[in-house]
């Protein structure tokens, strides 16, 4: 089964909730927020797919909405796939993938830290790069470019 067929298989299984947005050079699919966990588990556990390695998690601020991006890789079949989940900017919440790939923990903390996406079910969703008392999420478009923290020492 090649990448295009994987995309079509996903579209068939999750009719209307998964949409292939790009096939070349990488397969990019848009997944509905409520189906994310199910799709990930399916991609990881199905013997033909075996996307057993989570490469990264990040997010993009599209002003009207946020787009959380997951990149998965199959170490046995040598291919990778990108998942995108759209979430509203005022309530950016997606389920955490830590139950499927424990490595998701750090990436989710980083995405939370810089873009303010909340990952429900994450065991310890705290800031990872910025100081704990930082205000705001600096990679959001709404964060003022010239805003600097107040130094107290």
């Amino acid at each position, binding site marked *: 089964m090649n990448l295009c067929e994987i995309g079509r298989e996903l579209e068939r299984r999750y009719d209307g909730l998964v949409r292939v947005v790009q096939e070349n050079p990488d397969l990019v699919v848009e997944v509905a927020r409520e189906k994310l966990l199910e799709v990930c588990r399916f991609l990881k556990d199905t013997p033909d797919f075996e996307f057993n390695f989570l490469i990264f998690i990040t997010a993009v601020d599209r002003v009207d909405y946020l787009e959380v991006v997951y990149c998965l890789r199959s170490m046995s079949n040598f291919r990778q796939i990108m998942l995108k989940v759209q979430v509203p900017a005022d309530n950016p919440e997606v389920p955490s993938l830590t139950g499927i790939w424990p490595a998701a923990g750090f990436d989710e903390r980083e995405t939370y830290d810089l873009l303010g996406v909340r990952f429900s079910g994450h065991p310890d969703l705290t800031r990872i*790069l910025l100081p704990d008392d930082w205000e705001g999420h600096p990679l959001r478009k709404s964060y003022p470019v010239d805003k*600097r*923290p107040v130094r107290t020492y």
Partner: protein
Amino acid sequence: MGVDDRWKGYHETDPGPLGNLLTKVADLPGGQVLVGAADALVDWGRKCSIWPLTFGLACCAIEMMSTGASRYDIDRFGSGVFRPSPRHADVMLVAGTITYKMAPRVRRLYEQMPAPKWVIAYGNCACSGGPFNTYSVVQGMDEIAPVDVYIPGCPPRPEALLYGLMKLQDKIMAESLTRKGVPVLEPVRDRQGA
């Protein structure tokens, strides 16, 4: 270009018993000669053993390590002894980007160093924030502590660090035990290179 006086008077401490004694000696007939000789001796001792603190903050640290390796022989200037504790160190070699998260730690390390102490801002980032005018980067080491020598470059070559050390040695030689602090000098502008 004027003098940067953000940290003016910051190091003005009591000259101490030796300094007070030398001030009295300087008033005696011929005392200036004695004080001058004592100053020269102490300054010479200090300038020949400027031990740096071992720490690097970003890519510039690679070049600093290269300076410390055998090819450039930093020991010629008595600065080869990178100290793991700020309490042993004389100069703080700030090599790299200072983030707001790191800044309190850098400041604390500076405060833990015993006087007399000096600071070299090594690289554009430590001089002025460099290419990173962003939410997380402090715009220069001089926002945290007084800087004695600025070395621009991204990263500066090891030769630049050696030259900066020589500039610091010149500055140390201008110090005196009888004065409070360091005399404020007009910044020296060099026409090295282009």
